[in-house]
């Protein structure tokens, strides 16, 4: 049964005979990553109607609560009188909600937790409109590579404990050069080929400091930093076999054109991205949430 209950202003909850609530107009996906928490609200057609990013901060529990407040305060949802699962508000249809990301268990109002691997895969298939993809997701603390075959995860790898090759690494390096990560990537495009040998963040940082001390142009150092992330991703990709689909980049680094270019050069192909690529996990979570309302 797939009952889509469209609500007018004063509509109250719609209940199915078994007492379970059926189809709410929107579904929520929340991706609590190590640095940023992304929220997506999607209508039943899969159109994104709301997106939000906020820093995760120290406590995922507090972040989850802040997200709930944001959602409830959103005019579109407010007008419908929607509420969140176990949110306490007894008004309007309950939005289905799926949480993902490393803070997924800290969302008390989520119906379900799904790992970021599955969510990223589902989100990427949706965003890029293709059932076969090779996804590179560079997050704050981890980098994931996912091979998607026929809309299903065929293989994946995640980096180990070390933050080399992650967004965090870029941030640390940008800090030592006193620029933002975006500026660093832009600078890198004007840099000469330079390399840092170490794949460990701590050692790489001291190598960068060495380069600064030697008076190496900042552009070249920026090049070396971007190159080191790309090389780390490349090394990781050796642990799986990419499928026939296109290569796409999701996560925080997807907006940096030069980074994409370097990645493309290394992997010998075009690297797709989408304006919503950093929301891929949340998009996937929202799709899982939508599916919760579909009972066959």
């Amino acid at each position, binding site marked *: 049964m797939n009952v889509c209950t469209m609500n007018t202003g004063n509509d109250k909850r719609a209940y199915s005979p078994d007492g379970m609530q059926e189809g709410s107009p929107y579904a929520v996906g929340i991706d609590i990553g190590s640095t940023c928490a992304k929220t997506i609200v999607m209508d039943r057609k899969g159109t994104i109607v709301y997106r939000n990013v906020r820093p995760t901060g120290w406590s995922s529990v507090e972040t989850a609560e802040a997200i709930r407040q944001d959602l409830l305060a959103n005019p579109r949802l407010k007008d419908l009188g929607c509420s969140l699962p176990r949110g306490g508000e007894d008004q309007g249809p309950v939005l289905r909600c799926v949480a993902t990301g490393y803070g997924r268990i800290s969302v008390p109002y989520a119906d379900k937790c799904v790992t*970021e*691997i599955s969510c990223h895969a589902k989100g990427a298939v949706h965003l890029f409109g293709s059932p076969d993809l090779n996804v590179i997701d560079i997050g704050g603390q981890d980098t994931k590579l996912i091979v998607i075959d026929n809309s299903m995860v065929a293989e994946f790898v995640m980096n180990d404990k070390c933050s080399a090759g992650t967004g965090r690494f870029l941030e640390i390096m940008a800090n030592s050069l006193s620029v933002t990560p975006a500026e660093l990537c832009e600078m890198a495009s004007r840099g000469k080929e330079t390399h840092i040998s170490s794949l460990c963040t701590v050692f790489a940082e001291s190598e960068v400091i060495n380069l600064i001390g030697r008076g190496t142009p900042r552009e070249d150092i920026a090049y070396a930093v971007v190159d080191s992330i790309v090389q780390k991703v490349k090394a990781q990709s050796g642990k799986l076999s990419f499928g026939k689909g296109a290569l796409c980049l999701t996560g925080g680094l997807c907006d940096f054109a030069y980074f994409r270019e370097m990645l493309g050069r290394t992997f010998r192909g075009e690297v797709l991205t989408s304006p919503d690529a950093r929301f891929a996990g949340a998009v996937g979570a929202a799709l899982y949430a939508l599916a919760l309302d579909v009972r066959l």
Partner: protein
Amino acid sequence: MADYVKMWEDLGMDLETHDLLCQVLPTAVGDVFMTQENRPKAMDFWDLVISEVHGIRPAELIEEQKKGRKVFGTFCVFVPDEVIVAANGIVTGLCGGSQFWVPGGEAVLPKNTCPLIKASVGARLGRTCPFFRIADVYVGETTCDGKKKAYEILGQDVPMLIMDVPQMKRPKDILKWKDEIAEFAEKVEEITGNRITVENLKEAIRIINEKRKALKRVYEARKSECLPISGRDSLLMTQISFFDDPERCAQMCNRLADELEERIRDGVSVVPAGTKRILLTGTPLAVPNWKLHNIIETSGAAVVCEEMCTGTRYFENLVDDSGETLEELFMALSERYMKNNCACFTPNPGRIEDIIRLAREYKADGVIDCSLKFCGLYDIEKKSVAEALKAEGIPVLSLETDYEDSDAGQLRTRIEAFVEMLNER
């Protein structure tokens, strides 16, 4: 709980530090085992043993020592228990499976040594494990580099025998291992003061074969679609079988197998139908290392088989006891032990064949290949394992971990994602 303080004191243990270990273990046992529902009743034996793991069995060993028997501590399934048992010696496993002992090991070993080695050395030097104190002699073996060098350090503190395990499996290597066993037998005779004869060696072979058959019966039950026992409980049984008296071990395993077979007849399963079945392969899981099993089994899957030394490699293949001379029996032992497909061999195609065969026999939906951090042998072999499994269409997840809890979240994410992937297939 009986009072073992006096015994520990007599063993020269560091009681204060040991107290700390005694405090954490019950919580770990409670969290990992007692939270499970519908456990086989016959697990009561292993629950008891683990609840007083530093008490019951050590006390028994000391009683036997008073009668003049010698205790041999071993670190590897290559050491032939039969030879020791034939000479009326006792074998006890000595593998360190707890983070508790790692810092002690790191005090004398490089940090980038595998945690199994660091914990084993730490348990001895820190004087916080009765088994490590009780053993009259340790038996090491030349399997991996880390162990070889660690035995030199342990050898400064305790009598040590080293067996030279071949690194290849040519016919001449099997002969060489037979000679090594024969030489080992002489040393065991010296230490125990007992002669090894065709009769007592045959009897020892029979005893250890019975133990293998009993363990195998439990594992056979795990092949059923109606899974009668969790991976955690099976692992506990296997781990403790390294410490227990072999005859009692066989008896208890058979008792458990009886119950499991009955459960299968009655359709009693410990997991809901459709729960994904995982075969775990890789480095051994020494007590109290239950980390992976616990994460897997609280992520919506069940471990149905372990292709590792704390698993199938411990009991697969019986020793032929038809020989009529010591020479023939030693050869039979060599042939059986050399069937172990440890990653220390090159080349090692047998392990991959085993994994594929076992994955089919145990109807595994996926394989998790996990090695201990800094174990180069198993880590390097992961690639060929993954490729071979992929070629067979068997999903595989490769992991690396140590004894710390700090990576539990990351492991859980990978394992949950793997289970989600299996569920969507």
